[in-house]
């Protein structure tokens, strides 16, 4: 994998981004709100081949995989309605396939206003 830049944005989001020209097969994960509190720093980016090896093909697989490997995150997501956003669009179907370069965000209940 190529060089990576890591930064925590002032609004508390954890972002990991690929360096220019890295060309790695990865997906980007974003954890909002309370999920950001329990998601470890290294989880912002995951190599896709490793996920494939673990049998992760779909959003549902990914959620299951996260729950197994990150029990705190798994508990937090099990305890509250969780919405998944793929490349800034609401995902309605957990059988949606994961593709290289996807940005997948996990949203706990929102509280605006």
């Amino acid at each position, binding site marked *: 994998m190529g060089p990576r830049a890591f930064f925590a944005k002032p609004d508390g989001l954890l972002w990991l981004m690929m360096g220019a020209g890295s060309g790695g097969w990865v997906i980007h994960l974003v954890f909002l709100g309370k999920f950001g509190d329990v998601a470890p720093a290294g989880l912002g980016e995951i190599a896709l081949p490793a996920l494939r090896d673990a049998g992760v093909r779909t959003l549902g697989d990914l959620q299951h995989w996260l729950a197994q490997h990150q029990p705190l995150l798994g508990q937090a997501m099990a305890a509250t309605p969780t919405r998944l956003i793929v490349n800034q669009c609401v995902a309605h179907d957990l059988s949606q396939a994961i593709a290289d370069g996807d940005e997948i965000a996990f*949203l706990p209940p929102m509280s*605006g206003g």
Partner: protein
Amino acid sequence: MRIRIAAEAFDPQAEIAAFAAGRDDAGALVNFVGTCRAKTGDVAVEELRIDHYPGFTEKEIARLAAETAQHCDCPDLLVVHRVGVIRPGEAIVLVAARSIHRANAFKAVESLMDYLKTDAPLWKKESGPGGARWIEPRPQDQERRAKAEEGRKMSETLTVPGGAPGGGRLDPDKAFRPLRVAVLTVSDTRDAENDTSGKLLSDRVTRDGHVLAARGMVKDSIAEIQAQVKKWIADPGVDVVISTGGTGLTGRDVTPEALRPLFDKTIEGFETVWHMTSFQTVGLSTMQSRACAGLAKGTLIFALPGSNGACKDGWDRLIRWQLDSRHRPCNLAELISRFTEA
């Protein structure tokens, strides 16, 4: 429509002034400002942190605002929402709406706030001496949101912005044919001076391109109503009769009793759609209205209540469209020549 995510403290008054600047077509400006509390119950709040999801948050707030603009017929909206660390007393959110008259602006601000509370991709964390906690929508917020959605669904079935109810539209390729409309005021108490609903209907008849063929006034009397309406039914220069008044439930209200015996056919669907429409304005009170419509020897007859509001709803949301020969998918105007076919 302006949507802004503010990472720094903002001045609501300055935002409102900028929003209002340079427009003189709107007579109403309504705004709501939500501020950071210094305590929640007895617990002091030291700071509030709001996270957002850059890009998605803006997109979703813009979507919520666009839906509100459509449902409330109020396109001129402003949303400024803070993110980051907010101190007690600072503004969190500003929602403002401008419209020609106040009703739409009030509705838009309230409705959009109800949606922002539960549907805007923002996450609040409150910190105080006892630690920090994430805030989720309260049951009251969920209830308000559900109520707002119910209202929107209800109106969705009836109105499209600036257009005809129920998804109807005016076909620009079809010709408008003016109809000759007679307006009858039924009242024991009104005279030519204070006949506001008769005037309102007459004004709308001509405003929307039809011809005011006649105007009359009779007492709440079956004989008087029938005598006048029979004359108009027999008059080839009158296509449509609209009455106002006498459709209620009190002893003096006899307009339906006077008109129904004259009908060859009752237009039952008018009553159904009338109640759906009127329900949105007056709620369950619509039950007290016996507004009706029918056909008598080829003349279309509508009986509306006596109140100005009911006449507005009746004309603006129902009759107007059905008397417009351009209205699709269908209208009563195009059937007029066929009402008397053998």
